């Protein structure tokens, strides 16, 4: 099959040789076309340049002739076609597409027949020239200004080519019939001149694979050589030459990788040679043509040009042959796809396309299609890769050919090439956009349905190039861009269906494509070096971590410290910001260096903020950062099939003890997991922020384009808003703080697309962010989710963290705010109530006592003959308790909040609160034994008057401020009482605000807050004095509750069960307080992690909120315990206890209580010890 195809091609070429009749005519046509371009050029050129150009053109005239002849020969072979007529009437972009189809086909054809090198090269060159001239027609006159510089450069580059072509002039003298021969020679010569392609040929015969590497390296060497020679004479030319050769070498590399993959002995060098030679030829021909051409307006009607028609024919032919040889060479499959789509576009766009041509084309397409269907998928991969390489080659040869395309191809894949090649003026970019859309909407043009994001991506890439490419005059690049991005586009499609296109894709951003990185001078400051390398923008990270170089790593530290602000960001978001602005190096050790230094800086920035940091050490941060990156890789890299689960992730980190991974709360690890997995870190393009190489001298501007165009592949493009302060350093901090980025211009709202990972996210529109498609997390994506990148470049990250939530629930200063200092005189007074025999007693019948006795108790000096028991009163009075009652169901949901008038009696047994207090009538009764008169309040028989069960004084803490125990302490008062209710009705918030309102209305001096281990009370007293009395009495009785105090009471006095001595209790309180403080610190550390978290998904946010609430409750309890202990210790130490404290032994003697009845341990103090 191959052979026959080759034969056919040869035949075609030979026949074209014999048929030279139409030369003259064709030449004129070409000239005409050329004139279009010239017209543009002249319009924007100064006279001086014009002269120069003409002079150069003269030099190149002869070569140009030769080239044209070749072209013509080819053209003549095939008959006539009227296709071009339609093209001339349609807009430029359509024409471009047509040309693209042509070239593609031809080149692919060539690739099928590597042995028929010469013939195919001819046809290639022919097409290219045609392509160039026609596409240049599309240049918008409006853009001339912008492209002026470009044109200028183009012109300058010409002398270089003439130099080369001068040698070839000899060859051109040969007879026409020997065109093939002369071309060959020419090629060789050219190669010698530039690339020493003799070697390539030699290698070629030996081993394609390895030799191609040599070739590429050789080219690189040569490149330097060439550039050095040029540099002396014409500095401006240097970038041009460099870029061209870069391109070739690049192309070679691509070839290598592809040939390796497809394990097919490709003669890539030959292709390069071809492209180089054609390049020169074309240039010369172009110049020659332009010299001859008259200055006519661009809109020359070339509709009837026989040569163009022929081109079409040739192409359809070649497509046909390609299709027929599909089996023999899988590469063709791609070409088929591509050309089919492209052709389809053309058809769609041209209403007045010649029907005949259309038919023919459709036939071809059909043939291809059928072939495709029959063809099994295993070859698809090869197909893709090789075709992309073909495209790459094609493009590179284009750019070579049109010497002014100074952009080197950074693109290793078609997509990249697109970008690098795009000479889009804005008009053209619009055109190409239209094309994409049309293509994709055309059912036949695409393989199945094209996902919209892809289109968006193509569009953005082409539009993004518009700015940087404005300076270029040649709109040929439009063509190329459209073809190539189209190619990239379709290859993306293929990826989905089958497998892969280019493994190198996405690896384009490499330093090798850029000007050499400046080497730091000795003693250069970090800042100055950083300024120097700021043009590399995102590659700074790569530069600085390239080697284990102390200086560079210091610069990296400087960069991270001064150009970022991680201080208030959670580490995962900080990492996102880092990855947004700094390209991750490729090698793992380099990644590691970057992460290590990032962790260091992150930790330092957080360490300063000691209250808020939860981080223990640099290595801990690093450990987490590394885990996060692993997780990111694990989750989003489609190559990894076994995804880590959240559980695995958490356990993995939590099991670590070396790096303190274990002290990071699991909840936070869960948040990390959620955040990382809710949105992929996309690649960003910051080429518009005014750094890059734009501001550099002209001499490297060609590289700028290379550099920038390489970056086009990156997806999210952020534009500078307005004129901004000049950035001298690539400082994301400045960029963000000055709001230099705004996405609005380029990312209009697009309705969420089903199947995308996070529909609300801006980064969805990035082509590259879609790798997460494997992991379908769209199910739980909610529209409440945060678009983190939106906040990053609006610099509003701090507004969406959970700090306000944390502050609402917790006040770090809480522990330090002093609690109400008890009046110790008062305290002593109340304490003496314990000690004095004389006082008030609460008399209660035994049977009744049983009903209210919910606590353990002892009866002192029990005498069985009395039916009544006595509770020694320490304090009493009426109060208003804050309470909440359920409204009747008839009225509806909701609770009534009110102050309930009650009577409280603090006794030796506990705090009794009565809702009804009419019966309280103290009587003076003289004790029979001691003859001391006491006030006795007799509790009436009958139903219990208690408002609530007896409150144990043990652990009670009375306070004057509700904030003593943290902001939440008395806020959930209502919740607790009506927990079920509020959960049911969801009126928690309402209640909360109501109750706060109610409390706040009152005079704070009359309010008393009591916290028991289980409950909270808010009391309103009659006066401040009364309130203070209550506080003192409650705290004192709580302090000495269950302690062996020398009680003097009447017989049958009930006290709560005794447990410990005062000294013992104080010691315990102190110890417990220390423990609680430690625990509090741990909890606060945990809380501090919550402070800065920025949960992306609303689900995570809710989870965190719940956790936070729990944490706050724990913290509140701890604070209560700590403060309570502090108060108790204070009272115990300050109350006048002289002679009142007795050892337990004495106490036992005094009270004649057997030891067995008084356990020494605190097993009854359930509430306090349990947390």
């Amino acid at each position, binding site marked *: 099959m191959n052979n026959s195809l080759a034969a056919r091609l040869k035949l075609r070429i030979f026949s074209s040789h014999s048929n030279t009749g139409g030369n003259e005519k064709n030449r004129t046509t070409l000239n005409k076309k050329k004139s279009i371009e010239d017209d543009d050029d002249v319009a924007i050129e100064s006279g001086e340049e014009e002269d120069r150009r003409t002079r150069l053109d003269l030099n190149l005239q002869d070569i140009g002739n030769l080239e044209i002849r070749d072209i013509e020969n080819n053209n003549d072979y095939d008959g006539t076609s009227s296709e071009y007529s339609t093209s001339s009437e349609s807009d430029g972009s359509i024409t471009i597409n047509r040309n693209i189809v042509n070239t593609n086909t031809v080149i692919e054809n060539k690739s099928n027949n590597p042995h028929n090198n010469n013939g195919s090269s001819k046809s290639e060159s022919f097409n290219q020239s045609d392509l160039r001239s026609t596409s240049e027609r599309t240049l918008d006159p409006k853009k001339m200004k912008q492209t002026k510089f470009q044109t200028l450069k183009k012109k300058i580059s010409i002398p270089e080519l003439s130099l080369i072509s001068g040698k070839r002039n000899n060859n051109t003298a040969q007879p026409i019939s020997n065109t093939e021969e002369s071309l060959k020679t020419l090629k060789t010569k050219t190669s010698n001149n530039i690339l020493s392609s003799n070697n390539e040929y030699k290698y070629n015969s030996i081993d394609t694979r390895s030799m191609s*590497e040599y070739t590429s390296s050789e080219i690189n060497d040569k490149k330097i050589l060439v550039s050095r020679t040029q540099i002396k004479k014409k500095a401006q030319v240097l970038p041009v030459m460099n870029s061209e050769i870069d391109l070739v070498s690049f192309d070679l590399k691509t070839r290598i990788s592809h040939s390796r993959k497809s394990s097919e002995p490709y003669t890539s060098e030959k292709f390069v040679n071809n492209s180089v030679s054609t390049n020169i030829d074309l240039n010369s021909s172009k110049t020659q043509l332009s010299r001859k051409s008259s200055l006519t307006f661009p809109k020359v009607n070339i509709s009837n040009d026989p040569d163009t028609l022929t081109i079409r024919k040739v192409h359809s032919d070649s497509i046909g042959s390609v299709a027929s040889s599909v089996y023999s060479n899988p590469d063709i499959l791609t070409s088929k796809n591509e050309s089919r789509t492209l052709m389809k576009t053309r058809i769609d766009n041209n209403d007045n396309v010649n029907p005949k041509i259309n038919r023919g084309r459709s036939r071809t397409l059909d043939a291809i299609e059928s072939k495709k269907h029959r063809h099994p998928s295993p070859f698809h991969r090869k197909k893709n890769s090789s075709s992309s390489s073909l495209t790459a080659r094609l493009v590179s040869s284009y750019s070579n050919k049109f010497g002014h395309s100074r952009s080197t191809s950074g693109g290793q894949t078609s997509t990249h090439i697109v970008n690098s090649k795009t000479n889009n003026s804005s008009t053209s970019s619009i055109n190409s956009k239209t094309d994409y859309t049309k293509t994709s909407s055309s059912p036949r043009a695409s393989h199945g349905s094209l996902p919209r994001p892809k289109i968006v991506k193509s569009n953005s890439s082409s539009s993004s190039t518009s700015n940087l490419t404005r300076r270029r005059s040649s709109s040929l690049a439009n063509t190329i861009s459209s073809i190539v991005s189209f190619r990239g586009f379709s290859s993306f499609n293929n990826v989905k269906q089958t497998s892969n296109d*280019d493994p190198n*894709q996405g*690896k384009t951003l490499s330093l090798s494509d850029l000007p050499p990185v400046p080497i730091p001078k000795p003693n250069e400051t970090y800042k100055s070096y950083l300024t120097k390398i700021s043009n590399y923008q995102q590659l700074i990270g790569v530069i600085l971590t390239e080697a284990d170089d102390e200086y560079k790593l210091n610069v990296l530290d400087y960069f991270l410290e001064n150009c970022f602000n991680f201080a208030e960001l959670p580490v995962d978001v900080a990492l996102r910001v880092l990855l947004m602005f700094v390209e991750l190096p*490729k090698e*793992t*050790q380099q990644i590691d260096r970057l992460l290590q230094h990032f962790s260091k800086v992150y930790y330092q920035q957080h360490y300063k903020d000691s209250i808020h940091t939860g981080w223990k050490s640099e290595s801990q941060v690093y450990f987490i950062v*590394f885990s996060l990156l692993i997780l990111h890789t694990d989750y989003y890299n489609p190559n*990894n*099939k076994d995804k880590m689960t959240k559980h695995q992730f958490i356990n993995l980190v939590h099991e670590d003890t070396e790096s303190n991974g274990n002290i990071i709360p699991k909840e936070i690890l869960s948040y990390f997991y959620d955040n990382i997995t809710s949105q992929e870190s996309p690649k960003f393009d910051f080429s518009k922020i005014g750094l890059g190489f734009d501001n550099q001298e002209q001499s490297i501007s060609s590289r700028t384009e290379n550099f920038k165009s390489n970056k086009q592949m990156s997806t999210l493009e952020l534009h500078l808003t307005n004129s901004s302060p000049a950035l001298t350093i690539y400082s994301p901090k400045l960029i963000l703080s000055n709001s230099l980025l705004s996405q609005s211009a380029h990312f209009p709202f697009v309705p969420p697309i089903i199947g995308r990972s996070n529909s609300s996210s801006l980064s969805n529109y990035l082509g590259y962010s879609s790798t997460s498609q494997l992991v379908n997390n769209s199910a739980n994506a909610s529209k409440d989710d945060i678009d983190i990148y939106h906040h990053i470049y609006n610099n509003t990250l701090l507004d969406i963290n959970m700090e306000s939530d944390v502050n609402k629930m917790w006040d770090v200063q809480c522990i330090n705010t002093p609690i109400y200092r008890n009046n110790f005189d008062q305290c002593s007074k109340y304490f003496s109530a314990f000690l004095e025999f004389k006082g008030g007693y609460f008399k209660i019948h035994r049977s009744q006592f049983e009903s209210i006795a919910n606590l353990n108790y002892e009866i002192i000096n029990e005498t069985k003959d009395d039916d009544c028991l006595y509770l020694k009163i320490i304090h009493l009075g009426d109060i208003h308790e804050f309470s909440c009652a359920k409204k009747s169901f008839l009225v509806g949901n909701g609770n009534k909040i009110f102050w309930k008038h009650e009577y409280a009696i603090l006794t030796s047994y506990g705090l009794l609160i009565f809702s009804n207090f009419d019966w309280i009538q103290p009587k003076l009764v003289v004790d029979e034994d001691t003859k001391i008169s006491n006030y006795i309040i007799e509790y009436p028989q009958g139903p219990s008057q208690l408002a609530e069960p007896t409150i144990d004084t043990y652990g009670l803490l009375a306070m004057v401020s509700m904030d003593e125990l943290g902001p939440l302490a008395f806020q959930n008062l209502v919740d607790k009482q009506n927990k079920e209710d509020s959960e049911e009705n969801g009126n928690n918030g309402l209640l909360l605000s109501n109750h706060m309102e109610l409390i706040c209305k009152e005079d704070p001096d009359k309010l008393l807050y009591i916290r028991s281990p289980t409950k909270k009370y808010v009391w309103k007293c009659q006066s401040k004095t009364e309130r203070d009395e209550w506080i003192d009495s409650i705290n004192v009785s709580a302090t000495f509750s269950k302690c062996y105090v020398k009680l003097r009471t009447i017989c049958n006095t009930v006290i709560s069960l005794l447990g410990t001595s005062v000294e013992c209790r104080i010691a315990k309180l102190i110890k417990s307080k220390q423990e609680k403080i430690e625990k509090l610190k741990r909890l606060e550390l945990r809380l501090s992690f919550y402070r800065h978290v920025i949960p992306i998904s609303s689900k995570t946010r809710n989870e965190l909120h719940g956790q936070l609430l729990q944490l706050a409750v724990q913290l509140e309890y701890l604070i209560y315990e700590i403060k309570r202990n502090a108060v108790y210790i204070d009272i115990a130490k300050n109350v006048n206890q002289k002679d009142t404290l007795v050892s337990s032994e004495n106490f036992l003697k005094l009270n004649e209580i057997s030891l067995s009845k008084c356990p020494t341990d605190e097993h009854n103090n359930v509430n306090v010890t349990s947390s």
Partner: protein
Amino acid sequence: MGNLFSSMFDRLWGVNKELRILILGLDGAGKTTILYRLQIGEVVTTKPTIGFNVETLSYKNLKLNVWDLGGQTSIRPYWRCYYADTSAVIFVVDSTDKDRMATASKELHLMLQEEELQDAALLVFANKQDQVGALSASEVSKELNLVELKDRSWSIVASSAIKGEGITEGLDWLIDVIKEEQL
């Protein structure tokens, strides 16, 4: 018959199971290059993901999931999860870097002590053979003290990642060992 036979084997060997392979080695040894060189078989995906280099490749009916994790010691604890499932370790050595051969050796042996890696096969690429002054595979083997490795299948292959030499041979060996020992 042949089809039946191979499909039987497929089932026996759990073709669908992905084998996790780690590529380790000092920086500059050529890990990344080798990783991409390994894509001799069918490459499954392309789109770059920010993060570490991970590649999946099908080779001789096996799906390999290759992670380039460098060789840092600091995050070693974290690797455990990756160690646990690891079928093989590919250790890449820069054969020209005689100065750091000892470091490489230390790293390698330290890593192989991990419990989770006890069953993993070890393939050492004595890389950069294309360069002048490169130690031969046997010399590298000596430098790395590979003979000291007990109870482990290991092999050292001279390679040139740039040229693509030796990679296939190494991988062939590895696959054979994995098939023998682990499937």
